[in-house]
Structure formats: C-alpha cells, structure tokens
C-alpha cells in the first residue's frame, strides 16, 4: 500500500500544493474503499468527512416517494466528493452511492477545519481547491434545471 | 438587357398614347401609376388617360397626401405605396397543386399563360430594386422559374424623376434619380408653358423596335441639356440623406445600441415598411389540403420579419421583441444585404418612411446607430 501523502500528491486536487501542506492535511486523511452500492453518505446525515476519489464512480442521488432514486451527477477519478462539511450545520443534502468499487482518500472534517482555522494560509489554499468544483457543479445544476435538451 | 446604342429622341405627349397602344397590341398588359383611394398606385392602365395627370404627392415621415399640381404633368409625383414587386414577386402565388390517390401523388401545374407586363414609369430607384430582387430570385442553381419568366417577359419604360419627394434619398444610395441601365426605354418629362414632350432614351432592341412605330424627332443638344438640368435639380433636392460610409460595419457592430430600444418603443411591428419596400423579398410557404386530404396546394405569400411567427422554431420565436425585429430589418437591409447579395438592400425610395404609421425614418435611425458620430456601445 502506498504512502498516504504519495496518494494525495497524485490526486489532481493537490496540484500546486506545497509538500508542507500535503503532509499537514495527510494527518486528517485515511485510505478508504467502497463496494458497489455502498452509501458513502446519506441525505440528512452528519457531514463528518469529505473524499477525494482515486478510482471508481459515485452517484449523487435524490429520492422521492414512488420514484426510484434519481442521480443528478456522477463523481469520478480525480474528483472531490462532498462539501457540506465545510459550513454549519455540517449536514449532507443528498445521497452519495458508490456505483462500482471505489477507492478514495477520506478526510476527517473536524480535523481539517481545525487546521484551516489555525493557519489561514492552509485554509485559503484548500478553499481555492474547493471553489472550482463547487462552481462547476452549480453551473451543471443550472443547465440541468434549464432542461436544455428539451428545446 | 444589352445596351443598344441609339440616339435619344423626343416625342410629343400624345405619342405616349400611341406607345401604350403599341405595347397593348404587342400583347403586353401595361401597368402604370394611377390615382386610387387618395394614393398613386400601380395598376393596369387602358390608356394615358388613366395616369394621374396634374397630380402630385406630398410625403413626410408617416404622411402621404396627393394634391393637385399647378400644371398638367403626367409624372409629377414620386413613388406611392405600391412597387413593381407586386407584379414580379406576387403577394400570393400558388406554387403547385397535387392530388393523391392511394399512395400515388401527382402534380398539376398551373396552365394559366404567363402575363407579359409592360411597366410604365419605373423610377431609377425601382430599377435598382428590381435588379436587387433579381439577385435573390435568380441565384445560380436555385432559380425561381416563375420569376425568371415574369422578368424575361417584362418591358420596362423607365422614368427619370423631375422632382424629388419629401422622403426620397436615392442620391445617397447612388440609385438615382437618373435611370442608367436595365430599361427598354427611359423617359424624361419635358414640361414648360409652351411644351409638353418626352425625351426618350433607348436601352434595348425591344425598345428600339417599339419606337419604330412612334412619331419622334432626334433630340437636340438643348433637349438633353434641359433633361440634365432637371435631374441635377432633383438630385439636389432630396428630402432625406443617408451617409453610407462605414454604415454596414457600424450597424453590424452595434446590436446592443440604446437606439434599438428607443425605436422599438415607437415601432408597432406592423410590417408596413416591409410591404411597401420594393426590395423586401421574404415569403412564407403555406401548405393546404382539402377536407378529404386528397388534394393539396402550396402557396407562397409575402411575409415580414416583423411578424412573430417569422422566426418561430419549436418552442417559440427567436425574435420575440419588437427591438429585435426592427434591428433585424434595418441591419439586414443596410448591412447584411451587402454580405448576402453584394449591395445594400435599400434604394432610397423613402416608402418605409412615408408609410410608417408612427413616422419612423430609416435615415434617422441608421444615422443614430450607424453614423461615425454615434455614441459607443453602453459600457455597462
């Protein structure tokens, strides 16, 4: 098994990040594996982790009575999963289900938040990496909301 | 039409009558200006007596009035609500009829013989308008067969304008007032207290042939000079002016100009301008069937970019605002047309100005949006 910092360094999320910071955040990280159909988190649950996906596919889903779960985004190799842990009340707003065998690095949220609060430079470097995927997903949600293929 | 070098001649007013008769005996329906419903329109005339002799028109933005002249000029007015396009490019035209028996479909062509038209009193701006529509309907590979027939069969008697109207600006568009090409004959009305004659220029073999039967004399240097002066005077008295220098680029570069909103507040999107415009060519196709669904027809009718359904694609109209429709019309006419057909789509006839119910003036709007002095695009 590879060293965690090495795994982190290989992930696009840490591109351009100082080794010092990688080593620092590695202290909050652990290597995790999800089997197909495992739930990584459920809507309403406490957002205590976030994940960097190394290999695999995770479907973000919503459920409605009488309908099967509806996936609105798939998260894949190199992506970041979950952002509700960033801000109170630290609660997941959808389900995340592994579609296939998925390997990821999990971060303990409280640990990471504490380190970001203690050193705002670390916090800012992390934030610069969280914001782009959030903006991208917001834009995707807008396109989906506009139902562009119906026209 | 090839140019037949033949010296200009002068004919008496009365000889014009003979000319009309000769055309009629040659099988032409002679179409000319005539007074109807307080406007000078184009329709079939039986004789010169149908021309609006002694009448003129007074035109301003949103205003057209006919009035008596102090003299007995036969062509002492400018252009009215009609243009020759209603004959060459009819407002409604059946393209074909088909009938269906089982899974077999057969077409029947309309067998009505083609009309041969002689157009009397075609202004220089209108000659240019016809040439512009030729570019649209006689495109290589997609020639409009019916249009080609009507054009080939038409005989054109042009008229050099002795007066400019209040909304005329052909001098700006370099489309007049002198008829310089594409006519069979061109008339200049020479009218003073002691004479009423026409200078006749001959532009084609057909024109020359027709003149054989008409009493005429060779034009003198004095006749030519008089005609030249008249035209110079007309050119100098245009009611409107449009600066075309750089106009195309500036219109194409300013789709967000504030002026589009301002003009849209006045525009009723009524499509009058496109109907009176001698170059506007847009049409719609209507397919119809009888109740049993056994016979079907295809009709083509004039359409307008000011109509909502003009730009309809499943889901809605692309141009739903009046602003976008006016912008489409003006930008097409004065700018995109150049890219599409090699010339402006405007001949400076002024019809769209006179017949706009709210008096929107194309020269004013073009100047506001497209002149060098126009404000830059809103920086916000």
């Amino acid at each position, binding site marked *: 098994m590879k060293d965690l910092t090495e795994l982190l360094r290989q992930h696009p999320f840490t591109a351009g990040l100082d080794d010092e910071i990688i080593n620092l955040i590695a202290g909050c990280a652990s290597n995790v594996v999800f089997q197909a159909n495992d739930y990584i988190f459920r809507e309403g649950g406490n957002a205590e982790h976030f994940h960097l996906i190394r290999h695999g*596919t995770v*479907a*973000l889903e919503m459920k409605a009575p009488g309908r*099967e*779960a*509806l*996936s*609105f*985004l*798939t998260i*894949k190799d190199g992506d970041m999963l979950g952002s509700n842990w960033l801000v109170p009340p630290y609660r997941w707003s959808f389900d995340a289900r592994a*579609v*296939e065998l998925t390997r990821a690095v999990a971060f303990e949220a409280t640990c990471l938040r504490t380190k970001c609060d203690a050193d705002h430079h670390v916090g800012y470097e992390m934030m610069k990496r969280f914001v782009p995927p959030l903006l991208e997903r917001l834009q*995707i949600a807008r*396109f*989906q909301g*506009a139902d*562009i*293929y*119906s026209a | 039409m090839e140019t037949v070098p033949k010296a200009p001649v002068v004919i008496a007013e009365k000889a014009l009558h003979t000319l009309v008769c000769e055309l009629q005996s040659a099988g032409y329906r002679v179409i000319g200006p005539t007074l109807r419903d307080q406007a000078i329109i184009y329709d079939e005339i039986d004789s010169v007596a149908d021309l609006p002799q002694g009448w003129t028109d007074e035109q301003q933005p949103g205003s057209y009035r006919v009035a008596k002249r102090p003299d007995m000029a036969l062509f002492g007015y400018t252009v009215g609500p009609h243009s020759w396009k209603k004959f060459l490019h009819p407002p409604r035209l059946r393209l*074909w009829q*088909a009938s*269906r028996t089982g899974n*077999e*479909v057969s*077409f029947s062509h309309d067998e009505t013989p083609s009309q041969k038209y002689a157009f009397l009193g075609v202004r220089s701006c209108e000659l240019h308008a016809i040439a512009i529509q030729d570019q*649209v*309907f006689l*495109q290589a590979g*997609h020639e*409009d*067969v019916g249009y080609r027939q009507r054009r080939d069969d038409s005989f054109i008697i042009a008229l050099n304008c002795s007066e400019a109207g209040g909304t005329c600006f052909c001098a700006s568009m370099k489309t007049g007032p002198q008829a310089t090409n594409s006519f069979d004959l061109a008339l200049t009305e020479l009218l003073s207290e002691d004479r009423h004659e026409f200078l006749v220029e001959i532009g084609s073999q057909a024109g020359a042939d027709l003149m054989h039967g008409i009493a005429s004399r060779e034009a003198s240097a004095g006749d030519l000079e008089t005609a030249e002066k008249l035209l110079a005077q007309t050119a100098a008295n245009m009611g409107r002016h449009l600066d075309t220098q750089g106009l195309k680029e500036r219109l194409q570069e300013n*789709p967000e100009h504030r002026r589009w909103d301002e003009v849209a507040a006045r525009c009723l999107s009524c499509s009058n301008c496109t109907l009176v415009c001698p170059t506007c*060519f*847009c*049409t719609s*196709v*209507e*397919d119809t*069937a*009888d109740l049993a*669904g056994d*016979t079907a027809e*295809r009709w*083509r009718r004039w*359409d307008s*970019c000011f109509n909502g359904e*003009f*730009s309809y*694609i*499943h*889901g809605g109209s*692309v*141009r*739903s605002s009046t602003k*976008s429709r006016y912008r*489409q019309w003006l930008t*097409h006419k004065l700018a*995109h047309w150049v*890219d599409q057909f090699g010339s402006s789509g405007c001949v400076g006839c002024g019809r769209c100005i006179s017949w706009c119910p709210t008096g929107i003036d194309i020269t004013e709007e073009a100047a506001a949006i497209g002149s060098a002095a126009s404000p830059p695009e809103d920086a916000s």
Partner: protein
Amino acid sequence: MNTPLDPMMPRFLPLQRRIRETADVLSLVAEPLEGEEMPTFLPGQFNMLYAFGVGEVPISISGDPQERGHLVHTIRDVGAVSHALLQLKRNEPLGIRGPFGKPWPLDQARGADILLIAGGIGLAPLRPVIYHLLAQRESYGRIALLYGARNPADLLYHKELERWRRVPDFQVRVTVDHAGREWLGDVGVVTRLLPKIRLDPADTVVMLCGPEIMIRFSTLALLDMGMSTKQLYVSMERNMKCAIGSCGHCQFGPHFICKDGPVFRYDRVEALLKQDEI
C-alpha cells in the same frame, strides 16, 4: 412525375420502415422508387420533409451516406408537421426536397483527430459522420464521440451506441442530466467528459450539434483546452421555409442557415451566438 425541376416541388418516396428511437423520436426510412437511385448527400445536409397537405420542415439526414438503398431521417414529434410525418405508415408517400446546405468538414478534417459532441436529438445530424469515419477509419486520427441527453430513455440509437462503444479506436462517452439506478454511465454535462478522452487539441476538428446552450458552454471548454474557434464546427437551426436562400426566414446575421449552413465554422457565428434574438 417525380422529376421536378422546380426547387419548391417535393419528390415523393415510399416509406419503408419506421424505427422508434425514444418516446417522441422516430427514424423514418424511405426507399427509392423502382428503378431510381436515391439522391446522394453529404453528412450534415438536410432535406425539407413534406407531410401531404400539412406542411414542410427541415430535417437533417441521419443515415449512412454510402448506403444508396434508403434515406433515413430522425424526427422528434414537436409540431404539427413533424407529428403528421410520424403518423406516416409503410408505403405511404413521404415528400422530400433536397438535400440542402453545407456539410460537415470531413474532407478538410482528414488526418486530424475528430471529436464529435452531440446533445439530445443533435446526434442525428452527426450519425452520418460516424458512419463515414468508421468506413474510412484509416483516413483520420483518433476519433471520439461525447453524447449528452436528458435521461437514458432519451438516448438515440441505443443499439448502435453499444456497438460503437465496442469499436476499437473509437472513444464513446455518454452522459445524461438525470438517471435512475439502471444507468451505469455518467451523469452530468458533456463537458465533464472532455478530460476523459485522448486527442491532440492542436490537431483536432470538433463537430458540435445540439442545443445552443450546450454548444456555447462546450466551445468555452474546448477553447480552455487550447483549441481555436477555427477548429470548431457547429450545426445551426432556425425557421426555414424555402431552403434555397430566398424566403428570408433562416437568417442568422448575414448568414442564411439553409445555404451558408447549417454547418458553420465557429468563428463565423461566435459573436452572433452571444447576442439575444438574432
């Protein structure tokens, strides 16, 4: 009877087969009249399809350009005419005028990598390109198809997509906006698929067909990859009545979509696509 010289007069071909693609999309397969050959077409061209007595609509040809035995159009049931066309039964006459318009730049693209980006019904005008690329595979570099749709049920050409996925050297990625559990593919927008495909951005020709919103955001992502607007081609859609550049309906700035398009190099329409109500 069926040799009209008038460009406004349709010819009639018997309908041979109807293929249901999705809940509201069918492909109509017409066959040539006995003893006659099907007119040739280039990928990207369209025909005006006429439903007897009802009307006419522009529809891209979605079949194989090499296949002379039949003519295929894929039609979505969105209006009175398309609805009437989709009611046609076997052997009933389908009115056709065409083909019209400028094709996809397949000749100019020889030797280059090819990326096709399709959205919704926009896969139909690109399918002839796919047939062409697969038939002349050696003439092109790497080839890829990214296809986005609303949901798995709205995907066109299911079986062919499966077949294309198995073609070596053909990168096929499909994504949908929403999906249920049965869908094992991607959910998201087509641009999310771009990082997954291999091609040389400096030597790639991209052909895009789909909703204008998709075209705009896809081109931005392609430009971010280092491509130029001159490498991108889009197929445009507007109201059309004559298809020969004389009715005025399909104008898009200085262009007539029917004869200057429907396929345009992106730099020629980029500014217009950014304006409202052009």
